[in-house]
């Protein structure tokens, strides 16, 4: 025991060694010892990329059905596309528990909005703006919702709408969008189809859907947290929301593997 009058009763450092600050997560920084270390959460079960693009009559968006638990491909039936209102879709990547929370928020939003029979309906810009405010409010509380999302639909003028918002409350818009790995792998491919806003007019539904399908295939080749089973939503004024589930990345190219031998000079 320490007999120093100011430290009386405490364990003597000479006997027991100094206090181990790692115990009970005490903050090792001097002068801030009263504060426990704070951890914002981390994602546990996660969903990978969401990719989307505009075309002249609407938008197309896709996300695979995998719920990863670290590297473990734990759930293969997670739906990450959510239709909201008449002609809007929200695609969500990131933490799945937060994704489920957001999907409930959107459902509540839709229910509340239908109470007024005023001829107005929830459209993509409103939903995007709402989500951005939710994300920003949460990150400001140091308790972010760990997701990146893409909202697709039509704007107030009836033109195709596509906008991104993420866990920080950052938002931006582009004629082609992708979250997560998709930003690296899919965006370059999609930008070959639509480079800038004025190109949207030149692209029809068929071309857009094929581009997205091709990207899902590339993502499956190169994203170690992805699946070849995915959902896709196409929204047009004519057909409304068309939801396709359990799609498979088809025509994958693997046969060339047989010609690859060794890693340089080996011929056998």
């Amino acid at each position: 025991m320490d007999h120093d009058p100011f430290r009386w009763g405490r364990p003597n450092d000479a006997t027991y060694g100094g206090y181990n600050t790692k115990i009970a997560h005490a903050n090792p920084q001097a002068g801030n010892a009263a504060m426990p270390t704070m951890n914002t959460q981390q994602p546990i079960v996660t969903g990978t990329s969401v990719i989307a693009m505009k075309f002249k009559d609407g938008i197309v968006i896709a996300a695979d059905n995998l719920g990863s638990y670290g590297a473990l491909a734990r759930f293969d039936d997670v739906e990450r596309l959510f239709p909201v209102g008449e002609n809007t879709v929200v695609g969500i990547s990131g933490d799945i528990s937060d994704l489920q929370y957001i999907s409930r928020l959107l459902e509540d939003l839709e229910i509340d909005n239908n109470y007024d029979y005023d001829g107005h309906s929830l459209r993509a810009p409103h939903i995007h703006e709402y989500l951005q405010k939710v994300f920003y409010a949460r990150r400001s509380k140091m308790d972010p919702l760990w997701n990146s999302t893409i909202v697709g639909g039509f704007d107030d003028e009836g033109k195709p709408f596509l906008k991104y918002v993420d866990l920080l409350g950052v938002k931006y818009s582009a004629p082609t969008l992708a979250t997560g790995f998709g930003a690296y792998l899919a965006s370059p491919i999609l930008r070959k189809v639509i480079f800038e806003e004025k190109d949207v007019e030149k692209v029809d539904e068929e071309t857009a859907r094929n581009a997205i399908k091709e990207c899902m295939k590339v993502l499956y080749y190169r994203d170690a947290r992805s699946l070849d089973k995915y959902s896709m939503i196409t929204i047009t004024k004519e057909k409304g929301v068309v939801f396709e589930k359990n799609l498979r990345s088809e025509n994958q190219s693997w046969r060339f593997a047989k010609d690859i031998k060794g890693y340089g000079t080996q011929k056998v």
Partner: protein
Amino acid sequence: MAVKFKDGVVLGADSRTTTGSYIANRVTDKLTQVYDKIWCCRSGSAADTQAVADIVKYHLDLYTTQHGKPPTARIAASLFQEITYTNKDALSAGLIVAGYDDKTKGEVYSIPLGGSVHKQPYAIAGSGSAFIYGWTAKNFKEEMSKEEVINFTKTALSQAIKWDGSSGGVIRIVILTAEGIERLVFYPDEHENF
């Protein structure tokens, strides 16, 4: 783990509780009743999962008095989910909820660490589960008979026990069907060479 089968659901678990590498309890009961025919499998922190199960048990009891009818497994799963989701920073709880009622004929919900819910035909969780993902995926069948589903569960758990140092002891099984609740115990000499 919990598995849906022809007549209802079965829940199964090993009986090992560890503090580090010391076995604190070698005959643990990790299959916990939260309502008549709604049970859960607890993995993660024993203290956390016991506390959460107790809270859910209370809410389900309250639900019955307020609604004048028994809760569904889905309701139980939602309650578990809400608690683990809102307290994700404080809890270490990986849960499986399984229940039988005449309407659904049995349901299984997996609630992993972050507090998401996943309805599944069968679910595995806990440290030992990592070793049996392959075997269970290959050998699971929908609508198994009671004998088949017990064999499935027993084999899966015996493999988890064999390869995982944090799993061990006896295999406990609970069967929930229209007939009622049935408990089974398999001792190491019965499952080691199963």
